[in-house]
């Protein structure tokens, strides 16, 4: 599992969104690493700052413990009045979101561009 920051995306209105690309498998053995790698991005995702988009296009699988990390991330960002979304789920991970009902908890977009357009309004 790794997280790499990609160039910021510009929304049609000219505002930008910060994008991080996650890849690999997020399960019992990597969830702590995912949590730690995500933290610095969450700390700066605040009111007035650029929204954060987590690009999941490289994630093969996420288990309950990984979904919990996302839940805590969402709570932290909400408490900071920031904005966060997930984009580009692979078909298998989209199924996991559906089965776990995390699709009802998170804003999930088809692409990072779609997420940037929605979050930057």
């Amino acid at each position, binding site marked *: 599992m790794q997280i790499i920051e990609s160039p910021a995306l510009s929304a049609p209105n000219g505002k930008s969104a910060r994008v991080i690309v996650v890849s690999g498998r997020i399960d019992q053995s990597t969830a702590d690493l995912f949590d730690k790698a995500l933290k610095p991005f969450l700390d700066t995702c605040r009111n007035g700052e650029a929204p954060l988009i987590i690009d999941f296009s490289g994630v093969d*699988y996420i*288990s*309950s*413990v990984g*979904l*919990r990390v996302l*839940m805590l991330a969402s709570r932290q960002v909400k408490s900071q009045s920031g904005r966060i979304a997930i984009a580009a789920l692979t078909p*298998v991970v989209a*199924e*996991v979101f*559906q*089965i*776990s*009902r*995390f699709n*009802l*908890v998170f804003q999930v977009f088809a692409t990072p561009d779609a997420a940037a357009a929605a979050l930057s309004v």
Partner: protein
Amino acid sequence: MKVRFWGTRGSIPVSITATDIRAKLIAALIASRDRAFHHRDDIEAFIDGLGFDVAGSFGGHSSCVQLITGHPEHVILDLGSGARPLGQAMLDHFGPGVPQTYHVFMSHLHWDHIMGFPFFAPVYIPGNRVVIHSCHRDVERAFRRQQAEPSFPVRFDQLAAEVRFEVHAPDTDINVAGMTARARLQQHSGDSYGWAFTAHGKRVVYATDSEHDVGNVQQRAEVIEFFRDADLVIFDAMYSLAESVSVKADWGHSSNVIGVELCQAAKVRQLMLFHHEPAHDDTRIAGILAETRRYEEISREDQPLEVFAAYDGLVHPL
């Protein structure tokens, strides 16, 4: 060994409604279009081909499960409203003149798990013996209280059968009715206990009314050890994972996703979804079963885990 489910619903009994039955009939008739039924066998075969949510029902009694080992003394897990049809079936089978011994293992003392006791007919028959095993020190008080005035017309002391309570320490093997039983403390309001039973080389774990804290590594390891190599785990899958870690966190229940992950890690052979959410109809529970089987495929790293959803009346051989 066989496991017979008499009550599989969580929190409160529910009943199928006229609207539900009408929806099933409409679905069945739509599926039957352009088909001819010349014999009863044709109809039976057609019904067998319908989904269980159309042709059957998961039922609505609260928790009550029977372990059938062939031992002359009977083993029951919890006394939810499913204890009423169980008691009647026992009387029908053995008759009132042949005294029986019933060993009941209690997960906990919440209402939905004890409410069937006053309607368990064998307690009204002299000569029968009911031994209630629990890890809760106040087990006897809970049973007496629900039959005290003004809640019930028959007081506990008026019961004709011999009713005895045995309080056990968790994490200790006890030998009852030809099987070994062992309890483990679970996360639930007022505490609950899972029970692991071993008989004839088969191991069954009854783990209902238990919340699993996804981030608690030690708890996870302990549960996996308790489930280890079980032939069947009967698992509280009342909520979705998202509910169990958000709006319904600390409500004391778990999810299908956690059930799959724990059973896979413990190399369990079969997972039985149990303690169904009372707000869910048959279509919803059937959908959750299908999704759970798919999640098992997605998350599988080793041997396959068979997944089932319990229903009232199910006899599950091991």
